[in-house]
């Protein structure tokens, strides 16, 4: 084989080259850490998990679009602050008539759209009328209360409602209250035009949305010149991006278990607040074994909420006991209505006469649902219930089976829309199958009364849901953010539809 010596030399040289190439694969070094730049051109990268399907929230449902655009690119007349209060935005002030049917808004006079046109009461009227006319998403029903909109002068808008509605003003803080330019609605899906502190500049589908500071903004200019929202499919990739300095903050942590690595690291800060997302163990009130109230109550007594939250969401989040998140004005802690009581649960199961039934727990394949589904199943089995756990792909398969066809006994899903108690329990045809007339009359009284009456009746409605065991509320999703130490003004609570970028800064 000695004649192959040269050949071998050649091959060895080649193999060495290959190894060197492999090494080159891992060569190079980089650190994209932003040097602390001045206000003039500082940029911020935020990691998020759900990418919008389009930029047009008039035709596309999905929380990701307003999360990116509302309050940042599009503004509303009124907005929700960090405590859940309604505060001025494009409207400096507003008056409600004594019959609570007429709202008169005084608008700011120096706001401009990103297409250069000034914002006037005519645009406001156009935007409100357009919801009824051109919007297709179901949320547009929030404008059904409006009878007519009139313009008194460029900065005065008068809205007449068919009947008093507290809820209507609140909906004006959501996406349906967004103000559009009369000449800027031709390309909503790709080129949003608004009056906000940021203008839309670029969308790389599957990757990121870039917003650029609006230098003509009528209000206080935000600190960051550019904000890039980067979208990740899973929390591991998102965490890695933060750890390797690709992003400066994580907008909504999806895996509380992974927070440890950031909390023990002086480079980062972790913020925990609340959201509007009630993680609900929904019951099928309309058909199947859970039509039986005693069995529904048994399930509620059978669950040890504190232990469950600790196991499946790292103990973060708040136990609520009904369909009201902690930041709503009528929030009360109703967790005491059904304390964990295994003996009582067993007794109620016997009394219900449904002891032999198997309950189908059909959950979406979302992080909180898969984590908590296992715990719910094992806790209920401990009190003697039979539970069959099935995971359905979200959104498509879950929507089809549970939501459309109500082909389920129990499910776990977070209802994230703000003030959604009427939507989720007011309609007997909704997948929860509740919609009792007595409940709906409480909702109506709440909507048409004074703020004090609203609070009283909403509390009664929430209590009725709890006592009827219309569902079991596991917890509200926490708002968890991780950011580099020097980022300031992080919105602690995520209780509007928007990820509000206006207060962010750097120390």
């Amino acid at each position: 084989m000695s004649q192959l010596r040269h050949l071998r030399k050649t091959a060895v040289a080649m193999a060495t080259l290959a190894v060197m190439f492999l090494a080159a694969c891992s060569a190079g070094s980089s650190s994209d850490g932003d040097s602390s730049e001045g206000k003039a051109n500082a940029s911020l990268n935020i990691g998020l998990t759900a990418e919008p399907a389009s930029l047009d929230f008039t035709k596309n449902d999905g929380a990701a679009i307003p999360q990116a655009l509302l309050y940042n690119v599009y503004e509303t007349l009124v907005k929700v602050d960090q405590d859940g209060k309604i505060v001025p935005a494009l409207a400096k002030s507003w008056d409600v008539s004594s019959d609570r049917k007429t709202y008169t808004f005084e608008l700011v006079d120096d706001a401009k759209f990103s297409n250069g046109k000034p914002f006037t009461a005519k645009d406001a009227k156009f935007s409100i009328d357009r919801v009824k006319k051109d919007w297709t998403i179901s949320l547009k029903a929030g404008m059904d209360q409006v009878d007519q909109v009139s313009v008194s002068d460029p900065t005065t808008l008068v809205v007449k409602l068919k009947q008093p509605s507290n809820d209507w003003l609140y909906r004006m803080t959501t996406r349906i209250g967004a103000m559009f330019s009369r000449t800027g609605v031709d390309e909503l899906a790709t080129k949003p035009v608004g009056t906000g502190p940021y203008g839309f500049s670029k969308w790389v589908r599957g990757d990121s949305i870039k917003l650029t500071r609006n230098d003509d903004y009528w209000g206080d200019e935000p600190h960051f010149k550019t904000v890039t929202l980067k979208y990740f499919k899973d929390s591991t990739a998102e965490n890695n991006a933060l750890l390797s300095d690709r992003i400066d903050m994580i907008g909504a942590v999806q895996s509380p278990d992974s927070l440890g690595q950031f909390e023990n690291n002086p480079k980062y800060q972790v913020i925990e607040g609340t959201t509007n997302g009630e993680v609900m163990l929904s019951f099928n009130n309309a058909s199947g074994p859970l039509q039986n109230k005693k069995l529904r109550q048994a399930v509620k007594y059978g669950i040890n909420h504190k232990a469950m939250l600790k196991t499946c969401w790292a103990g973060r989040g708040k136990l609520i006991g009904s369909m009201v998140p902690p930041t709503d004005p009528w929030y009360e802690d109703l967790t005491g209505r059904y304390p964990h009581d295994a003996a009582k649960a067993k007794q109620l199961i016997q009394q219900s006469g449904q002891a032999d039934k198997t309950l189908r727990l059909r959950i979406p394949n979302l992080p909180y649902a898969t984590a908590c589904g296992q715990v719910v199943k094992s806790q209920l089995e401990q009190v003697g219930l039979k539970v069959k756990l099935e995971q359905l792909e979200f959104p498509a398969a879950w929507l089809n089976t549970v939501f459309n066809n109500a082909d389920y006994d129990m499910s776990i899903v977070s209802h994230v829309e703000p003030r959604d108690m009427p939507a989720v329990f007011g309609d007997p045809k909704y997948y929860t199958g509740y919609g009792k007339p007595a409940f709906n009359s409480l909702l109506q009284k709440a909507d048409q009364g004074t703020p004090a009456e609203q609070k009283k009746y909403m509390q009664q409605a929430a209590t009725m849901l709890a006592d009827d065991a219309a569902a079991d509320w596991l917890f509200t999703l926490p708002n968890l953010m991780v950011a580099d130490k020097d980022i300031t003004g992080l919105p602690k609570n995520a209780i509007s539809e928007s990820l509000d970028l206006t207060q962010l800064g750097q120390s």
Partner: protein
Amino acid sequence: MLLRLLRRTAVFLASLGVSSIAVFAFMAVLPGDPARVALGVNASTSAVQQLREEFGLDRPLVTQYGSWVHGLVTFDLGNSYVSSAAIGPQIADRMQVTLWLVVTAMVIAVLIAVPVGTLMAIRHRRLSGVLLSGLSQVGVAVPAFLAGILLITLFAVRLRWLPANGWTPPVDDPGMFLKQLVLPACSLAVVQGAVLTRYVRSAVLDVLREDYLRTARAKGLRPGQALIRHGLRNAAIPVVTMLALQLATLLIGAVVVERVFVIPGLGSLLLDSVANRDLIVVQDVVMILVVAVLTVNFLVDLLYLVIDPRLRTGAS
């Protein structure tokens, strides 16, 4: 020869037809309603119905299939259900990204496989050859996503040499583009390189045993020269074939790797569209992948007809 050519072409076209029916049928039986997904949880039945009509989902399946195929043939890929944007340009954008990834991975794989495979062949009876052979077996067994996760953990999170994920178009920032391309391309190349290495090894082994190599040596060429001048070209034929056939595996691997590295390529588009039940996009993307793989196989077939004289004369 002509008969073979015709037969091959007929098989190619028939495969295209059958796969288009299969792709369409899969989409039709997938549970979930695109209109419902687009409109979300609060939409009324009438709104969903209206959107279904807008999408043309209320028509008979045969009609839907017909108009889809008509669109494909006339290069009109239609519009996305979810974003209502034209699909063609979207796929073209994503395709560029995926091609960068796949081609880079292929180049890395070849650069590793040719020298290492050759060395393994030459030393196949010695310890170093056996060790390399074992190493390549390990490489074959490591799935691309695992390679990706390991590379990220080591080079991005621990050492911070390279970005953990993401994508920058080469025109925007060539430096960043390269940095972000390295890890995903390497994780895709690990498996491909290992598979290819074993092919190179056996191809070179075959050539080393051939008479003409001994003849070349007898004419006074050094072993290295003999192998390079006469051997490698012959060894290249099966290797190039393999490379072409590996395109399918590479594309499937790219889907997974794009997910791990958050790269907006064809694979990400496919997975997102499946989740959103943007069925028309799924059909188009899958069909394009199928066409790519079938076409390459068809071309390889033709190449063989040209290269291998035994096939040309009609003698079996």
